[in-house]
């Protein structure tokens, strides 16, 4: 083999996500900066965790997603797309100008505008039709009726917080955002994150003065999005909790870089095990976000570091659905009656998604006598279908699928209302 084999061949193999050949360890198509440095490592992994993860995904997701799986798989293995969550606490006008010059748009307001326009269009058509029937008086009445109908029928319009702004590049555009720069107050203008992560926060629909709990807050992207709604400005309060102390540090850093002191003071950061929350404050929150630890599919397919598919973490991985269920239960019990809970993961697995929600609803009913209603989020799916690639066959909740033309996600989210 030596004549054919050489540094060049080894390099060829190093790039591919193929299984190990005699030529040496073959590594997953990892993010370049985290890729296992062959020359420097003392022991090379025999079968990389990324390879194990992919194999696992191929088996389960090809069943679940069917024909969609190859596109999703390619999306997972290519560079993900980011969104720039605008920081309302900084000098935004300058930033929005800059972003718009680059051809990025705020997908939230863009979708809302488009929906409004089509609403008005439909209403106008209805009005015309209405006015063609009946007499002058009747005409006016019918017109008025259809107008009100058109304006109020989709519940979403009123409930999407226009304060959350997230800039993305158009479909098919792979431009990267530059890192945000501090403004004159020292606050950063935007936070780069998977744009799909904004969706669970939008679904939660935080109102001013709400008491909000973010049960698994670290590293803090969704927490920051929650704060953008302005809930803490007057009377509201945000409790941001995460069991990991090191990750909570990151949360603190983000709060310092993005949020002014007076708002930060309305946020309490804690390091409890989220499962214990019900013992601390039961039934007090208007809104609860439960963004649970999961197999982080995209990370697991691409990065060798800290990969949950490593052999030594098998037990931990197998216990995930149980952990997720316990966290969701805690979240439900922490909510007030009439309060909302949004459950989210960044995995495609139904075992970590729908199954957990269904089980939680059941347990809440049978063991805690708490009635929970699963809310329909299809209006969000319709609203944002041009920005994201949604899976249309979720039993409950919604799922954003990675796709090369819109490489966001995976992101699963489901909204529950405690009755």
């Amino acid at each position, binding site marked *: 083999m*030596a004549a054919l084999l050489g540094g060049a061949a080894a390099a060829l193999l190093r790039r591919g996500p193929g299984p190990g050949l005699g030529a040496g360890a073959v590594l997953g198509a990892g993010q370049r900066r985290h890729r296992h440095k062959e020359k420097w490592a003392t022991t090379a992994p025999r079968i990389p965790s990324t390879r194990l993860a992919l194999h696992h995904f191929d088996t389960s997701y090809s069943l679940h997603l069917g024909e969609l799986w190859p596109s999703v*798989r390619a999306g997972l293995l290519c*560079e993900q797309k980011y969104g720039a969550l605008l920081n309302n606490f900084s000098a935004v006008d300058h930033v929005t100008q800059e972003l718009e010059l680059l051809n990025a748009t705020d997908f939230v307001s863009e979708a809302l505008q488009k929906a409004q326009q089509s609403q008005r269009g439909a209403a106008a058509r209805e009005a015309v039709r209405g006015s063609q029937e009946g007499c002058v008086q009747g005409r006016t009445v019918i017109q008025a009726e259809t107008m009100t109908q058109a304006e109020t029928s989709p519940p979403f319009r009123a409930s999407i917080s226009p304060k959350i702004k997230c800039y993305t590049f158009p479909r098919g555009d792979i431009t990267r955002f530059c890192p945000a720069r501090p403004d004159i107050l020292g606050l950063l203008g935007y936070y780069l994150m998977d744009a799909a992560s904004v969706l669970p926060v939008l679904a939660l629909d935080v109102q001013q003065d709400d008491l909000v709990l973010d049960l698994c807050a670290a590293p803090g992207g969704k927490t920051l999005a929650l704060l953008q709604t302005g809930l803490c400005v007057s009377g509201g309060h945000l409790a941001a909790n995460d069991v990991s102390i090191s990750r909570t540090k990151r949360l603190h850093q983000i709060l310092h870089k993005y949020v002014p002191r007076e708002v930060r003071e309305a946020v309490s950061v804690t390091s409890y095990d989220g499962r214990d929350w019900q013992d601390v404050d039961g039934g007090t929150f208007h809104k609860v976000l439960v963004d649970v630890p999961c197999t982080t599919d995209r990370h697991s397919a691409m990065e060798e570091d800290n990969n949950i598919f490593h052999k030594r973490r098998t037990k931990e991985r197998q216990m995930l659905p149980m952990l997720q269920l316990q966290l969701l239960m805690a979240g439900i019990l922490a909510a007030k009656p009439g309060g909302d809970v949004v459950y989210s993961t960044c995995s495609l697995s139904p075992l970590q998604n729908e199954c957990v929600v269904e089980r939680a609803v059941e347990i809440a009913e049978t063991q805690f006598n708490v009635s929970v209603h699963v809310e329909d989020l299809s209006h969000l799916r319709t609203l944002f279908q041009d920005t994201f690639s949604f899976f249309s066959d979720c039993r409950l909740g919604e799922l954003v699928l990675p796709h*090369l033309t819109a490489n966001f996600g995976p992101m699963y989210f489901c909204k529950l209302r405690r009755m």
Partner: protein
Amino acid sequence: MAGLPLLLPRGAGRALVAGRALLAALRPCPRRGCGEAAALRAMGFSQEQARRLQGLQPRLGPERREAVAAQLLLLGLSAEAALALLEQSPELLRLPTEQLRERAEELRRLGLDGGRLERALSRCPQLFAVPRKRLAAAVRLLRERCLFTAEQLREVLGTCPAVLLEEPCSLHHHFQYAYFRMGVRQKEMVKARLFQMPFAELRNRHIFLERRGLYETPHKGQIQTNNPKLKDILQLSEKDFLASLACSTLEEYEVFKKLLAREEAEEGKEEEVDALYADEDDELYSERSKTAPE
């Protein structure tokens, strides 16, 4: 001068006739005041063809033009083929006829004979001009490093004569990619005409399939795979490749190509940095070993 048939018989006799015609054409003929056109006509070019030929590199002396044209005919090209070749690459007119002859001989020795030679020369006129060393290096690479048999080499040269123009390094890389990354063997490479497709395009198609889960690098010793045939990957049009092999849309593929190009560019930069830290005994590659592949 006796009138010569315009349609020359094919085969050995033709070269002989053309040779005679060449000699006849070069003899001065004061009575008719032979112009260049007449000489060319005598060789076998039509009035129209002669006119076209004379239009090429007009500053060049007629003897050069005639000599080169004659040589091409001697090599077995038809009048039209020779003309087409010269129109495509008029710089050939500046090459010494000896070089043309020698190069054609060499190519013939490598297995490009008859129609193959003509096709190869027409498709890649640079074959006349590429330095001898480069030619030899490419052949040596294909035989000794890539381990194509003589017969396979002939086939490769016949279908993809441009390999002889390739930088041996990139040719080797192209081969190794197919061999190691795709798990394809020489026989299939020849059948699929591996070298006809530019490497970048091959890589795009292969990795697109791979990331979609439709192509897997075979394990050591694995003989059977479910991979699509190399022939199909290479020879389908992009549209058909996407529709029947990748089962994907053009939009997805376009974005993918952009992302992959960016990955490649950044990989290159990273490897430059790594190279700065490379140890001397890190060199796995040995120029001297000649072990057969598995």
